[in-house]
């Protein structure tokens, strides 16, 4: 009994306490932002953020006067568009990588991996010039294309790892029963991949939703994703922290919620490659 008690207090001291400290560091800034967002603007600078007299005033102003809703819609269109482009292009490619061997396969796979290693600046300058030539600046298409530079390689790799987990014997069985290759992919492999497809899609959605530099460079007056809108709150209204933090909370909400929902599957997919390597 005594031993147990000692080990409990020891655990509290060496595990629970440090863990709690790290969690305070991790969540503190976020909670502070939330607290600021529900404090009245006038009281913010006299008494500082507090729970007493909490108000939704900042959130209401965000939607009434700043037109935040349109920005949310823009972000939603761009993120969904990127998910569709990323997934449709990568499914057949991932299947080919997973099931066939052909000359140059390894290089082609690494080519998809290397894309995400290049600095954004290397791509952002020519993409701006391209889109300007095509007259696509300030359209959803431009931003979907730009976000696809990240989404396609990522989802190709994720889908390969999911498809490798599905036994080849299933495809072969389907093909002996008279399915074509595409039939086997469509009827047998894809349905089994649905959880993986959802996780990949959600990850693409989050990254596109959170993306800022492309949004800033290729967006404009008519297409302004939420990340740019939040940032412009600084300029248009001389730093109203209540409004700004409310914008931050709203802008971060969809990605955070989605992430917490799928985090288990997502993390196992993301870390698999690293553990193997």
């Amino acid at each position: 009994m005594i031993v147990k008690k000692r080990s409990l207090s020891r655990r509290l001291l060496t595990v629970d306490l440090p863990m709690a400290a790290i969690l305070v560091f991790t969540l503190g800034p976020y909670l502070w932002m939330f607290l600021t967002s529900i404090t009245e603007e006038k009281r913010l600078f006299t008494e500082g953020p507090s729970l007493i007299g909490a108000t939704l005033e900042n959130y209401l102003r965000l939607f009434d006067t700043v037109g935040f809703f349109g920005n949310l819609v823009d972000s939603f269109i761009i993120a969904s568009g990127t998910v569709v482009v990323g997934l449709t292009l990568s499914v057949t490619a991932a299947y080919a990588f997973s099931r066939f061997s052909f000359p140059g396969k390894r290089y082609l796979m690494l080519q998809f991996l290397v894309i995400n290693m290049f600095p954004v600046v290397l791509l952002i300058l020519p993409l701006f010039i391209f889109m300007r030539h095509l007259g696509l600046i300030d359209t959803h298409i431009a931003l979907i294309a730009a976000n696809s530079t990240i989404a396609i390689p990522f989802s190709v790799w994720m889908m390969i790892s999911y498809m490798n987990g599905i036994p080849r014997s299933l495809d072969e069985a389907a093909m002996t029963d008279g399915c074509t290759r595409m039939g086997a992919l469509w009827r047998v492999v894809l349905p089994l991949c649905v959880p993986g497809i959802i996780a990949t899609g959600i990850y693409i959605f989050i990254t596109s939703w959170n993306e800022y530099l492309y949004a800033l460079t290729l967006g404009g007056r008519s297409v302004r994703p939420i990340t740019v809108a939040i940032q412009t709150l600084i300029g248009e209204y001389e730093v109203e922290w209540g409004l700004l933090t409310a914008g931050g909370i709203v802008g971060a909400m969809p990605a955070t919620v989605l992430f917490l929902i799928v985090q288990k599957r997502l993390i196992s997919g993301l870390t698999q490659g690293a553990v193997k390597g």
Partner: protein
Amino acid sequence: MNTRSSPSRAGGLALGRHVLPIAMLSPAVLVTVAIVFLPMLETAWMSLHQYVLFRPKDFNFIWFQNFIDALHDEVFWISLEHTAIWIFLTVPSQLLLGLVTALLLNQQFPWRAVARALIIVPWALPSVVISLMWVWIYDSNYGILNDFLLRLGLISSSIPWLADPDTALYAIVLTLTWQGFPFFAVMILAGLQSIPRSYYEAAAIDGASTWRQFWHITLPGISGVLMTAVLLRTIWVANSIDVIFVMTGGGPGYATYTLPLYAFIKARTNLDFGYGSSLAVLFTLMLMGLVIVYLRRAGKAVRS
């Protein structure tokens, strides 16, 4: 192999075998060529030209003049130095904090699942929100950091963390550490969980101390993951400019310029796409070494 047994069908299948993968790959490959590789070539091409966006007619081929100019550009060297400081401070801090977090999460305690879910929150937040959140924390008049340190008596007057050239870069390093350590924690935790329990039991029977167990079992067990995570993170941290851009825009003065940020600002603010491109190309070449090391490791995994 079994197609060989029926020679009449072998021709058709062999053809199918070559054409089908190509057909299945081509949409993804063609699109990436169009939106990634062609633009990259365009950057390389622009970097050899004098090209300022508001003077589109002066698109003169000037060989490597932009690169030579860069080497004589004081700001280039300042940015390069900051990039080095930035990487060598941020990545180890993220790694250490991530390692500690992973080791803690690998212990048994009642609220472990909750802690593991919450620790990743920073990873899911948009970098703009992260930047603004920390600008607010660092605020010299109302920021909580100054308030906190003043109350503890650690400082005697408020410090304008982001407006002071001596502290601005380090303040951003802290922000990026906060943003990036969950990635390390999650990766390392996955590595830790792949080490068989029996190793520790055997070591405990042999009387090995916790420290020796860590040194001889845990570290070797996660070294592969650590290496991959450090490589990935270094490349990512080196490239990342959104947080700096929002928090300080490179200022005060050039105090928080990193090389990719300098390239971005040159193009965005000065509209000097020729010089900006050459900076981007130079930076990519410097990064290439790391990328190749990473690809070698990944390539091995692909083969197996």
